[in-house]
């Protein structure tokens, strides 16, 4: 039987690409037998979305014109 280690990695991989048939089968089988991994399976997809929210596209910080001017002058000084 597939180990938890591998099952975890396969769940992550499955978020991005299709698994080969046998891997998919072993993973499903593992998830049927293993409560721990089954619990993690629920978290995989929402976790990815939450992690994605760390992207700076979602933030409202950027460099102001003032900061850029300051940056130019301190670069010139060095």
């Amino acid at each position, binding site marked *: 039987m597939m180990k938890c280690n591998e099952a*975890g990695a396969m769940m992550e991989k499955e978020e991005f690409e299709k698994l080969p048939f046998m891997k998919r089968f072993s993973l499903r089988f593992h998830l049927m037998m293993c409560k*721990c991994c089954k619990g993690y399976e629920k978290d995989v997809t929402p976790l990815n979305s939450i*992690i994605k*929210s*760390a992207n700076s596209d979602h933030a409202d910080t950027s460099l102001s014109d003032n900061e850029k001017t300051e940056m130019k002058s301190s*670069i010139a000084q060095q």
Partner: protein
Amino acid sequence: MPKAEQTIDTSTWVDDYSDMLYNFSVTRVNDHEMAKDLVQDTFVSAIKGLDNFQGKSTVKTWLFSILKRKIIDHWRKQESRQTRPMSALGTDSETGESKIIERQNKGAVSEIEINYDNKELRAAIMGCIQDLPDKWKGIVIDKLVEEKKSEEVCKEHEITASNLWVIIHRAKVQLRDCLELKWFNS
């Protein structure tokens, strides 16, 4: 060294590149001032080392490669300074697993309502990402935050494809536990 043929005008660098460099660094260091300083240091190092730039790549690629090195240096300094509560969970690469598995059946993260405008959630996950070990941090940001292609991430970090998913999994288990701690216990 064939450098005389092109004179590089560094005076427009801040206008041309600071925004993209800043976006890259703020995602990785999660601190406005620090991100800004790293960008500035990048420009200074680049101008000082202009002789080393042989025009084999674009100025943009070159600046990014300098910034990446500065970010890694920053992480290292940070890691040696901080006490790391998350490492108590035993996520170190060889032995960590058994302790983590015990917590794996909670599934509480799936109850978090995901909303990109949610500043607190964003702050929580960014804080958790900062707590990841250095060697995982860049990989998680490239693959899960910026959604780069797997091949690209493997090449950049010199890991194999199967290693990528193992690292992503271990890092995500740590992030999940960290989020549960920050989100549900505060």
